[in-house]
């Protein structure tokens, strides 16, 4: 019964996600992720949990430490993390 419930819920969730995946596939979106600048990624991802940090809040070395912490905590992709923290180190 429990196994049935687990698979039932998982099937519903995966089905919903698959539908959303198909509906969200578009030519614009295919290129959108890859063309995101560091500033765009910073503005769009940090704010999912907290306000966007000011680049001048930390120096380059501190941003490097925060980079690894936030990459893991916020589950950022390697590409996003690299772009965001390169932007912060450039703009601080």
């Amino acid at each position, binding site marked *: 019964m429990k196994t049935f419930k687990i698979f039932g819920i998982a099937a519903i969730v995966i089905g919903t*996600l698959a539908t959303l995946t198909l509906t969200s596939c578009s030519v614009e979106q295919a290129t959108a992720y890859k063309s995101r600048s560091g500033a765009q990624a910073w503005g769009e991802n940090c704010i999912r949990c907290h*306000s966007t940090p000011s680049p001048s809040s930390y120096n380059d070395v501190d941003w490097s430490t925060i980079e690894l912490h936030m990459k893991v905590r916020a*589950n950022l992709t390697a590409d996003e993390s690299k772009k965001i923290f390169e932007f912060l180190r450039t703009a601080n």
Partner: protein
Amino acid sequence: MLLFFLVGNVIAQDTKQDTEIDSLVEAALLRKGFKPSKTQFMIRGYGHTGFTSTKSDTGHEKTKESTFDGGTFAPIFLFNHNDRLMFEAELEFTLSHGDLDVGFEYADVMYVLNDYMTVRAGKFLLPFGTFMERLHPSWINRFVSKPLGFGHGGMAPGSGVGVELRGAFYLGNTKWNYSTYLTNGPTINDGSDEPEEAGMLHFENLKDNNTSKAFGGRIGFFPFADSSTEIGYSFYNTNGTGEPGSEYEKTGAFLYALDFSFVKQISALSGLVDIKAQYNNSKVEDAFFTETHDDGDVEDYTFDNESNSFYVQLSYRPTMSGNDFVKNLEFVGRYSEYNTPEGAEWESQSSQYSFGLNYWLSWRSLIKLSYESAELEGGHGSHGAAKVKTFSLHWAIGF
């Protein structure tokens, strides 16, 4: 004249020498003293303090309380060994009812295996939904309180001791993140010491009480390229929650959560809209517990051990306003519910409305003014109802 000429020459020479020395010292400091080391240690964290006033009405008794909250100090220690290896830990010091409570939030070591996989080991925040892992720190949480069902006495696991694999990736035109973990399992309260909590699960076991571990995970999905929307599904499963040899040793539990997040700057509304929601469900396999009546009679009883809770939160910040004061304001509302099993000694139904007006002093510091109205029925052997209204003014800062 000759004297002035000689003195002038000496002063000019001294100035030149000073400049040369300064530049040499600066170069030496840059080269030696201020050259970043390969390992970095950093302390970050957050804290908050404020004032809370509470009115409670149980139908036959009304009480009023007000207090300045002593505050919370939560330092986060980050030790960056290199680009791939880090140790992180968080403690939480809270002044509560005249005592200093020390919480051990997490302490784990993480290693980045590749672009798509990071392994963590130790005590870490569990990605059961998003609230406890990402949103609970006081400078991130828009209210002073947590939604119902989270925190002490709640049903959602907050942290666990074990190992975790997590990462994020693009799949086709979409973005996903995942986490899967194996931790010490929860312990079921058998009611022997606390009969009013018989059947309740307790998480965060630093040492497991049996060989059954908890296996769980979360998958998050971003349907749009601007990362504005995230939908997540989490689960947490264990095949045994009781002590070895006890009748609860094979009493399993399955929990799941659905979470939703939408954060986007909308020009038509001249500001930032932030919507968060999470639904939690917990089902523990049926088991019998013992109740001792006042006359000494002992009776076995059972109940459908299923709990659920959810919250929805909406906030709006007029970030595109031309007025500096107005753009730092934030309006926020939240509704949450928490229902525990019918027939349990801790059976309860509670709901809470919260309204808040926040002012952001900086990107990591805010003043929170909030009003909450909660209705609670039952809970911990009580069958009465209570209405609680809370007014809070808090200042939170992240550092």
